[in-house]
């Protein structure tokens, strides 16, 4: 059984720590049960189910550390993995950045586990996909999609008495619907902790509608346009920015948060004052881990307030070196959990279109890559539904564009923010952005 209870996990980890002879020992235990079903050309292609349970041991003698993992749980194997980690620790060079382990802490109980999501079966998934297939078949369209659910736990214990445990579930669904002529394409992609919130029929209808309405796209000149980015497109663009809120890289002069002449831009008005970004592992729509990989609690944190950067994530080593307070980072990234949550307004995408004189509506972006690490300029393309707006109405679909744009510049050019929704591992509003730079056209559909 891949999903162990708190007590079961603690019992295994206590046993492992009982075998330890190192100065300090840290044990991680995690399990996941996941299933998926994939389809294309209006038929199922593959389906599978995977279960994993893994134990990791990190042993340290002074500043020498060794790591070992195992997926066998008899007593002999548990002792063997501890001995392996200790053997590697003795061989390892000293790590000058080694930090002593933390002691016990009161971590909040995570809220991300929904039993109905964990209970999904291959039949449940097939039924949900059948609803999606019906939409495309009924409308003489063609769909390709993917549905995946998982349930898992993570636990951590160390020789200083720290113990932490989190349990979570996740279900994600994406579908691309194309017309049979190959001239139109639509897409949706949603993730939830609770499968009860996933309606594959309704979501596929949205993708089908986009497939139909995006057919026969016209070419218009690339250039700078006002864009309305649906939440999926907005999250595609902003993924990189949240990882930049980090003290060390800013101090080291290799981040957009680095200041000319040294220091960081913490406290500066970097974005439009409408921009407010937080992370919060207890948000019911986007629950996250309540402790980080190095044993620090993860709590609600304000990253940007009215366009001003208020905090930078900081590792324990760097905090000690610089005399700062350590802080777990957002985005489930290097130091912590809890995705990016950006505040917005109450307007729907339809409302935002009505307020737009001339602009482009973007469903999603594709193949985004960093062009310049200094300015975070990225390139990529629009995909699966790009439309021209004039005088408050969608006038016609347009061919896809390639963009070259920085999310920092983008967040300075905010005209309006709509009602936030969850998109992947973020909660973001649709955004109306002026002067978004498209550099060329693509014939891809």
């Amino acid at each position, binding site marked *: 059984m891949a999903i162990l209870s708190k007590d079961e996990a603690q019992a295994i980890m206590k046993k492992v720590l009982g075998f330890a002879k190192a100065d300090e020992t840290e044990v991680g235990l995690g399990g996941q049960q996941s299933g998926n079903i994939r389809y294309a050309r209006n038929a199922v292609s593959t389906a*599978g189910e995977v279960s994993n349970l893994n134990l990791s041991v990190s042993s340290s003698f002074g500043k020498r550390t060794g*790591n070992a993992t195992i997926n066998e749980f008899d007593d002999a194997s548990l002792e063997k993995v501890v001995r392996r980690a200790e053997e590697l620790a003795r061989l390892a*060079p000293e790590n000058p950045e080694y930090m002593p382990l933390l002691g016990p802490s009161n971590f909040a109980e995570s809220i991300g586990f929904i039993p109905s999501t964990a209970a999904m079966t291959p039949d449940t998934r097939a039924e949900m996909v059948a609803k999606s297939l019906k939409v495309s078949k009924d409308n003489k369209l*063609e769909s390709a999609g993917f549905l995946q659910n998982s349930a898992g736990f993570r636990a951590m214990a160390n020789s200083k008495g720290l113990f932490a445990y989190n349990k979570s579930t996740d279900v994600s669904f994406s579908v691309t619907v194309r017309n049979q002529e*190959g001239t139109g394409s639509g897409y949706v992609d949603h993730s939830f902790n609770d499968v009860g919130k996933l309606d594959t029929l309704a979501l596929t209808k949205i993708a089908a509608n986009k497939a139909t309405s995006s057919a026969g796209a016209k070419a218009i000149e690339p250039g700078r346009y006002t864009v309305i980015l649906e939440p999926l497109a907005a999250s595609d663009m902003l993924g990189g920015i949240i990882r930049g809120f980090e003290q060390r890289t800013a101090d080291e002069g290799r981040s*957009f948060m680095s200041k000319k002449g040294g220091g960081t831009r913490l406290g500066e008005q970097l974005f439009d004052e409408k921009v407010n970004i937080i992370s919060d592992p207890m948000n019911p729509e986007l629950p996250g881990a309540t402790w980080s990989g190095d044993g620090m609690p993860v709590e609600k944190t304000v990253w940007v307030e009215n366009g001003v950067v208020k905090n930078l994530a900081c590792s324990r080593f760097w905090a000690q070196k610089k005399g700062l307070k350590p802080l777990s980072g957002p985005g489930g990234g290097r130091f912590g959990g809890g995705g990016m949550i950006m505040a917005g307004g109450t307007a729907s995408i339809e409302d935002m279109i009505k307020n737009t004189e001339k602009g482009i509506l973007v469903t999603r972006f594709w193949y985004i890559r960093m062009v310049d690490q*200094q300015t975070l300029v990225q390139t990529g393309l629009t995909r699966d539904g790009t439309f021209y707006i004039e005088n408050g109405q969608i006038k016609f679909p347009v061919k896809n564009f*390639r963009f070259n744009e*920085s999310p920092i510049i983008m967040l300075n050019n905010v005209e309006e923010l709509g009602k936030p929704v969850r998109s992947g591992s973020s909660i973001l509003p649709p955004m109306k952005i002026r002067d978004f730079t498209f550099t060329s056209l693509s014939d891809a559909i």
Partner: protein
Amino acid sequence: MKRRNFLGMAGMGAAGALLHGFPAIGRSITEADALMIRADAAAKKRMADIALQAARSKGATYTDVRIGRYLNQAVITRDNRVQNVANSESYGIGIRVIANGSWGFAASEKMDADSIAKTAALAVAIAKGNAKLITEPVQLAPQKGYGEVSWKTPIEKNGFEIPVKEKVDLLLSVNDAALKGGATFINAALFMVNEQKYFASSDGSYIDQDIHRIWPTFTVTKTDKASGKFQTRDSLSAPMGMGFEYMFASPEHKIIGGPTTLYKGRYDMLEDVKAATMQVGEKITAKSVEPGKYDLVLDPTHLGLTIHESTGHPTELDRVLGYEANYAGTSFLTLDKWKTKKFNYGSKLVNIQADKLQPGSLGAVGYDDEGVQSGQWDIIKDGILVNYQTIRDQAHILGLQASQGCCYADSWDSVQFQRMPNVSLMPNKQTRSVADIIKSVKKGIYIIGRGSYSIDQQRYNFQFGGQLFYEIKDGQIVGMLNDVAYQSNTQEFWNSMTDIADKNDYRLFGTFNDGKGQPSQASAVSHGSSTAKFEGVNVINTARKIG
């Protein structure tokens, strides 16, 4: 540990970087363990036969079994310290069946007879369940059984047998050279893979393979506090299907005479980092490019990725048919273009070949993951599209009597599917040097190394950067440029290819983790070419100012 996770833990950039994930899945092993792990083909045959029989008894009309042991090692350093040394192992069985005309797949890490039989039964049950949601039964190209055969990457030094200390010392000496040369930061890493794969099928094949890959890499960073600017330069190494001998370059493996030393078949990491440290400083003060049309001279360390994205991916038949529509995309190379046998992909100099046997390449294997023997074939001949890349259930679509052997799975617990073979641009049949090509350029840019890369979901419109950009004026390299990226359309770009160097310049580029599929899988593949010239390509300036 799965290779995709093994790569993710490095935190260093790689092509198709769609794949992330940690903690690792699988067992970690020590250096001593790695040496003791050796395949026992007879034992694996017994396990495979249990699976084949169990699947047949449950109603499978076809079964294949993959028993895989995947060994990985990552040695990762930064500046004067080791960040991580991780050895890992993943071992298990994957069983794929056809039942009621539909595919089914199941995998287990439990290798006792009872578990194997249950896994086979589960695969058949999933196939029968899926059969309710298919539109036509799987049509599998015939494949003869080879009996008991084996294949090994022809390595000289098994990287797993080289002591960790030797690898750590090498990387720390690389870092030391960079720091002494004035680098502000240096990350260097060495990744090694050993796939021990056993394949058996109801066709009568029992194939035992031992595959090795290696990837040394670094990123040098230099910052300028006064201006607040920083630049990086990545290693010019190609990951290879080789052993540790790759790390020992002799003079015959070096191409000297251009703006930087380039490597052929072996790699000198220490020499490259010294050059990189000087060049990264030059990059900070290099002239920002004037946008416009340029003739581009593209080195194989750069051109390989262009080949990968604009010829490798669009000629994958599963994309053409729509199987990747929800993720990696489709392809502009629809079947009608192939059927005409006249579709003009590029100029007459453009000859693209698929080759699963190429020595030293990442994609070299004796047999693919559905038991098809490796081969070589033309994809683009004299500028015309002539073929795609297929697996067994696609061959009939092209009227082929057999698969081209392009099936691969990145782990025993991943289902195998269509992946790119080594796809390469053939060199000039006439004698032609890089110096001759540069002399022929009036206004151009010579690009070396892989940089930012992006292409649309049907592989028309792309934008590529690089590591080093040198301005060419009237046949001479006159200095370094910065902020360069070129944009083009695949067909226009390959039609603008007007020159290519000969076989003396032919080198392999490679990528360790090309992402595709849902759930996403990684594959490693090489692309060979000689330096080529493309006329009148649109170059943009990527510099922007932030507040």
